[in-house]
């Protein structure tokens, strides 16, 4: 039980896909202009991760080793197509603002990375928890980045005006701002964790 819980929590903390493993960055930076987009992308990626991890760990014994990557990709692409169609049907606004980054979940290194590093070795329950933990960690990281960018770049949070007497820093909503925010965040987290280790 303790081991399973550890699989879940490592994705949020010590092996956070964005801040620690530096995986899955393209969507993290491109869609994090507002909290709503960040949350939508986080949930979509978590669903794909969960589905593909479960299926891959179920069929892991019958996939030959040489062609495992194409097999994984087909499974992942199936779930991405499901998400794409569902999002178009139930959240057309979100689907429009995420644009090509919804189909791009298929080449998100995080999803294939988890399939390769975890789901093809471990059982179903452990893989499910691993996917959930990684998904939650990814979503939280996206929320943090998008909250910073939306609050400082636009003065709003979830669309509500928060900072009234403040000139928004448009730079943060544009492309260079995303790179700066993530660079500072990763550096800051490295700094904090090295401090804790030495203390």
């Amino acid at each position, binding site marked *: 039980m303790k081991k399973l819980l550890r699989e879940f929590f490592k994705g949020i903390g010590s092996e956070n896909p964005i801040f620690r493993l*530096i*995986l899955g*960055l*393209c969507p993290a*930076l*491109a869609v994090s202009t507002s909290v709503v987009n960040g949350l939508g992308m986080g949930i979509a990626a978590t669903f794909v991760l969960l589905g593909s991890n479960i299926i891959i760990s179920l069929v892991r014994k019958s996939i030959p080793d040489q062609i495992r*990557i*194409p097999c994984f*990709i*087909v499974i992942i*692409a*199936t779930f*991405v*197509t499901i998400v*794409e*169609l569902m999002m178009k049907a139930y959240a057309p606004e979100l689907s429009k603002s995420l644009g*090509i980054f919804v*189909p*791009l979940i*298929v*080449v*998100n*290194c995080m999803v*294939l990375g988890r399939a390769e590093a975890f789901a093809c070795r471990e059982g179903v329950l452990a893989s499910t928890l691993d996917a959930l933990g990684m998904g939650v960690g990814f979503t939280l990281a996206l929320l943090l980045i998008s909250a910073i960018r939306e609050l400082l770049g636009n003065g709003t949070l979830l669309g509500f005006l928060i900072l009234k007497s403040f000139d928004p820093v448009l*730079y943060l909503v*544009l*492309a*260079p*701002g*995303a*790179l*700066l925010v*993530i*660079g*500072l965040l*990763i*550096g*800051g987290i*490295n*700094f904090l964790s*090295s401090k804790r280790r030495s203390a």
Partner: protein
Amino acid sequence: MDLAMFLSVIIGAIFINNFILSKFLGLCSFIGISKETKPALYMGVSVTFVTTCASIITWAIYNFILAPFHIEYLRTISFILVIASFVQFVEIVIKKFSQALYRTLGIYLPLITVNCAVFGVAVLNSEMFFKRGINTLTSFTMSALQGFCVGLGYILVMLFMSGIRERLELCDIPKSFKDAPIAFIIASLMSMAFMGFSGFRF
């Protein structure tokens, strides 16, 4: 097919909408392989080759299979499968014909399968050039051209970045900002410089 349209695709793909700096596609490999100039250049060349060929192949699939049968929703799954098998095929061919080339490029090829830039350019082509009113010939040339220019833009930024990072090795950077964080901050400054290109109008 006029010249202005060609130019706007070329300049657009290399500078204005540079895949790495303004669309964030191919970031993982950009941060991972840009530590030295030589591997960065090799990676850039292989990416350019694959994006060009992938654009042509996915154009054929979209134009002759997906669009006529109205099964556009299978785009994601068919494109990624074709790209993955194409990369595998290239790897086998290179291994067979030139061991020297395989040793320099071989390790990058598997990485290209999951490089967002390759899949991204295929999806982008299918969204940009398949509107009603654009004839087949134009959409083909435009797709191939965009694939090639995206690769050129990728090489350009990889070379800039690896040049800067080679010099950074000698600098005194705070310990927690070494490697990835400082690379992101440099990329941010470069991206700001590239935003200057967005003033171009055609």
